[in-house]
């Protein structure tokens, strides 16, 4: 590499470092405000670092966790995300395999419908979907009533509304898998179920990771769907919880809200740093959907 090129690269390196520091500032600002006492957080003082007078220690964090059940919200959000992603990965991949391997007008129509559902904005179905989820219940011989407006069944709603992207991506991949492998296993005496789980499923792993990451990013952060479907008094996801620090009558508990934002961001950052490679790969292959 020539000297001038090395120098220009060094300059770029420095420029990008500065840009990145600025880029991270909003999060840093929330962090430092979350450590300040309530009275020191206002529109004119939000940029000031905490000093000995305004430093509140971890009070805001304690407040955020104890006052409104942060851990319960965290648990609900985690459960909803994990159960929905698991259901989407398992059922949508099976669905996608079937509709790529069986060629008929029905499977073709299903594929087009899935692609269509990806584009449709949530506002189109927001009211009807939430009233359907509210009113629908399945009674098991009077012993148990299954409701869909609880965190425990929300995966079914996400499986339905999130199927589009997953099926689309899985189909894209299945088309590139050579049929011969599957035919060989069928000839060797596997039934379709065995063929799927022993032959196709292992091949799907990279696509599973991509789909899983995209869907998890969406579901973990989703606000409107759980707000409209869940019983708000009983169950709050993290996105809903943060809303509650605004309180009624326009009063905002800034300190605890900042702490809650930090608590919401923290696990995401950890997961991101741990699985960065996969997440970035997931985004790139997910982009093929365009």
């Amino acid at each position: 590499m020539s000297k001038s090129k090395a120098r220009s690269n060094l300059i770029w390196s420095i420029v990008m470092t500065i840009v990145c520091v600025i880029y991270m500032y909003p999060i840093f600002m929330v962090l430092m405000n979350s450590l300040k006492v309530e009275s020191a957080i206002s529109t004119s003082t939000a940029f000031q670092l905490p000093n000995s007078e305004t430093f509140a220690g971890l009070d805001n964090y304690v407040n955020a966790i104890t006052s409104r059940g942060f851990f319960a919200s965290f648990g609900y959000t985690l459960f909803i995300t994990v159960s929905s992603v698991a259901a989407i990965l398992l059922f949508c991949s099976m669905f996608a395999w079937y509709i790529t391997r069986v060629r008929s007008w029905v499977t073709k129509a299903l594929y087009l419908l899935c692609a269509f559902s990806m584009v449709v904005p949530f506002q189109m179905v927001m009211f009807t979907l939430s009233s359907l989820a509210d009113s629908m219940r399945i009674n098991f011989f009077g012993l148990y009533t299954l409701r869909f407006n609880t965190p425990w069944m929300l995966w079914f709603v996400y499986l339905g509304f999130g199927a589009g992207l997953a099926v689309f991506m899985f189909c894209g991949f299945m088309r590139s898998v050579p049929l011969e492998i599957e035919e060989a296993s069928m000839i060797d005496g596997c039934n379709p179920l065995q063929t799927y789980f022993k032959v196709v499923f292992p091949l799907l792993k990279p696509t599973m990771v991509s789909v899983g990451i995209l869907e998890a990013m969406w579901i973990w952060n989703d606000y409107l769907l759980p707000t409209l479907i869940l019983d708000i008094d009983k169950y709050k996801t993290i996105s809903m919880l943060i809303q509650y620090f605004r309180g009624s009558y326009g009063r905002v508990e800034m300190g605890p809200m900042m702490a809650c934002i930090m608590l919401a961001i923290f696990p995401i950052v950890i997961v991101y740093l741990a699985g960065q490679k996969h997440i970035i790969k997931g985004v790139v292959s997910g982009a093929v959907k365009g």
Partner: protein
Amino acid sequence: MEKAIRKYWPIFVLPTLLAFIFGFIIPFVEGVYLAFCQFTTVKDATFIGLSNFTKVFADSTFTHAFWYNCAFVVVSTLVINAGGLAVALILTKAIRGTNAFRTVFFMPNLIGGIVLGYIWQILLNCALSLLEKPLLRLDATAGFWGLVILMAWQQIGYMMIIYIAGLQSIPDTLTEAAEIDGATPWQTFWKVKFPMLMPSLTICLFLTITNSFKLFDQNMALTGGEPNHASELLAYNIYYTFYGRSGPQWRGIGQAKAVIFCLIVVAISLIQLRSTRRKEVQQ
């Protein structure tokens, strides 16, 4: 083989199909029907024909939200793609710390829209008050640029990742050949790299345009439509029509707005895909 698989349809197709019918097909069809009805719940709907649609266009908040949203789509798409591409170009040079920079730029994507909205509301309000300008909730123009800044901050990293993948797939031989022929870096970019980037550009334009049209969480958390509906995007306008207004007519009007909104988004996706696909370079 197809025949054998066919028999297993209840296992393979049924779970997703039932959920899809429950989560998309029924709500969608019912939603289209309800756009022609007056209703407050799904059960008390009475058919009233097209009158919801005529009322939609008489609602000035909707037409305002439409133009506000169009302006937002144009500006944010330009800013995000220019920013994402610029960062991608810098980070594909052989500079130190590229991976750390990528990590930082992508990070905001993982944060939810509501959280992002509140973070930027505090930050921008503080900046505005230091500049002695009216706060976000009092000024729709400030709200507009605030939303652009927020979306750029969130999405530049995402588009950067896609552009980097695109840039890395361009064979070195092409850029080297251009260099030997005496092309300046500027010419190399526009004449060699840019045409090869068309597939990435298609995807990024598609994503940014539809994201900006469908934007809801950030809009709600950042400005909440204040002042007086002036900073509402379409999605939030529809939401407010449903849940913020009292009067038996509003839900029907809201659903009609949602149908129009849906048509706009679908049409844009189709047009946009078709027009950029044509410009793609064949390798």
